[in-house]
């Protein structure tokens, strides 16, 4: 069996242009090192699926022009407000990005349906909201068990590749993730799952750690990337890098500003360590 332990470059090689790429995280636990590698590798025309409320993870990919369609429930920079590239691209006339909007619970239900191998799943709510007009693939059915009830169904989501950041992997490829990120069901829904982790530990250590466990059976590749969520936080290990986020927001105000940002933090650094050095390594160690 080929090793599960890959480099950033090897792992991102699993992603092909045009694929459906799912990503979890928001201002916490976004797989930013993997995302920067996606941009560095010039992946394009991705169908991005944001698992749960998204943030700079989706925004950076939108800004760097890697995305053709984006399925999401909410995108903002949390306490830092609007996500600049998401907003720009959705306000701009004839932009090349198409949005597919979900409610958070229906999005997770659709991914659960993907994990269950079924083509669709019923969800509550939705009927009477404008989601039903912007998502013609959200359908209204008569409940076959109650003729007086109408219920919405949504199609399953089965990403080609999922990427997420986690705390630990053991030497067998089992993963310990943050409990609020839906990574276990995401890993099951996706054909391939790439996980960046802060730490590689023994199976014994992983068993004793607290968090959401993802069995190796659901994991295709593990990449060891300490500070791999930077500039988002990795709760318990490092906080959000406020200075970097403010810099990102400032840089995103102009095209040249954002080009400089991409050059400095994505394309110029020869590797993740070089990125970290440039991205105020000392500050994030607080």
């Amino acid at each position, binding site marked *: 069996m080929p090793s599960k332990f890959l480099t950033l470059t090897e792992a991102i090689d699993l992603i092909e242009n045009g694929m459906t790429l799912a990503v979890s995280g*928001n201002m*916490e636990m976004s797989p930013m090192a993997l995302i920067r590698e996606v941009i560095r590798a010039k992946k394009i025309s991705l169908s991005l699926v944001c698992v*749960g*409320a998204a943030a700079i993870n989706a925004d950076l990919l939108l800004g760097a022009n890697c995305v053709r369609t984006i399925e*999401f*429930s*909410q*995108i*903002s920079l*949390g*306490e830092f407000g*609007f*996500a600049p590239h*998401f*907003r720009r691209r*959705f*306000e701009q*006339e004839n932009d090349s990005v198409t949005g597919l*909007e979900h*409610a*958070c*619970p*229906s999005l*997770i*239900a659709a*991914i*659960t349906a993907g994990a269950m191998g079924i083509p669709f799943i019923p*969800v*509550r*709510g*939705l*009927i*009477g*909201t*404008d*989601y039903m007009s*912007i998502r013609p693939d959200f359908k209204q059915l008569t409940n076959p068990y109650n003729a*007086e*009830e*109408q*219920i919405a169904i949504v199609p399953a989501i089965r990403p080609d590749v999922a990427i997420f950041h986690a705390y630990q992997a053991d030497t067998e490829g089992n993963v310990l993730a943050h*409990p*609020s*990120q*839906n*990574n*276990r*069901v995401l890993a099951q829904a996706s054909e391939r799952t790439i996980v960046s982790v802060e730490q590689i530990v023994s199976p014994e250590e992983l068993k004793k750690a607290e968090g*959401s466990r993802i069995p190796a059976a659901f994991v295709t590749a593990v990449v060891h990337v300490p500070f791999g969520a930077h500039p988002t936080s990795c*709760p318990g290990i490092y906080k959000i890098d406020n200075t970097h986020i403010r810099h990102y927001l400032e840089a995103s105000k102009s095209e040249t500003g954002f080009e400089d940002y991409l050059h400095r933090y994505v394309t110029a650094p020869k590797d993740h360590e070089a990125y970290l050095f440039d991205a105020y390594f000392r500050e994030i160690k607080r």
Partner: protein
Amino acid sequence: MNIISPSYSQDELLICMLARELRDHEVIGVGNNSPVPAAAALLAKALQAPSAILYILGQPGWPFEGTGEFFNLMQRGGIDVFFLSGAQIDAYGNINLHVIGNYNQPKVRLPGGAGSAIVYFMCKRILLFKTDHNAKGFPEELDFATSVSSSQPYVHRPSQLAGLFTPLGIFRPAAITKEAEAGRLQLTHTAPGVQAHFVQAQTNFDLKLAASGEPIPETAAPSAEELATLRGVVSGQLEQIYPEFARQTFSKV
């Protein structure tokens, strides 16, 4: 800076108004990017609702597998109270979190609906809130219906809108009995020092103040106990989830 009173901020008043709505033993959910409701839930738990169960997205010690298990609990009726907001809120409590302007080419693209299109239907009591109260935020008609306050009888909807809370006052849906007005939001309390006609001036939909004729009472200002608890224990707890908000809201008072 503060138009109501020098002793507390608008956010603090709003947090107290929301907290007072919460009851002991309720299961209370708070979504993401929601520091004001999070503070309200923590304040209620510290005061009148010690046995309330709080699930605040982003809290340390999250007991669920992802948000999925939490939403499942919500879909099967396990969450008693939830808080929702809108960039626009109409006279019936329908909300818009999507766009200002046309959906396909909006003037302002907002972050999106998050869980509201399902939460609004499935939690028993919905507390609508808005941290800023300006006329444009309360139009007669929404630019996009992210979620709605009522449904046809063929839609499973165990929820009810409990009220709308803003720094200017409290609004309750009209009783089902008053035919023409059923579900339309009525101003039941103004914020301390705020007059009803001022609220109407800041609200584009018609509050129909003349219709009732009765004077509208003021809601109570935050008590010394509420403020002390909020700025003490609640601020400390909130800092773990919303550090920026906690610092800005409670440190400078």
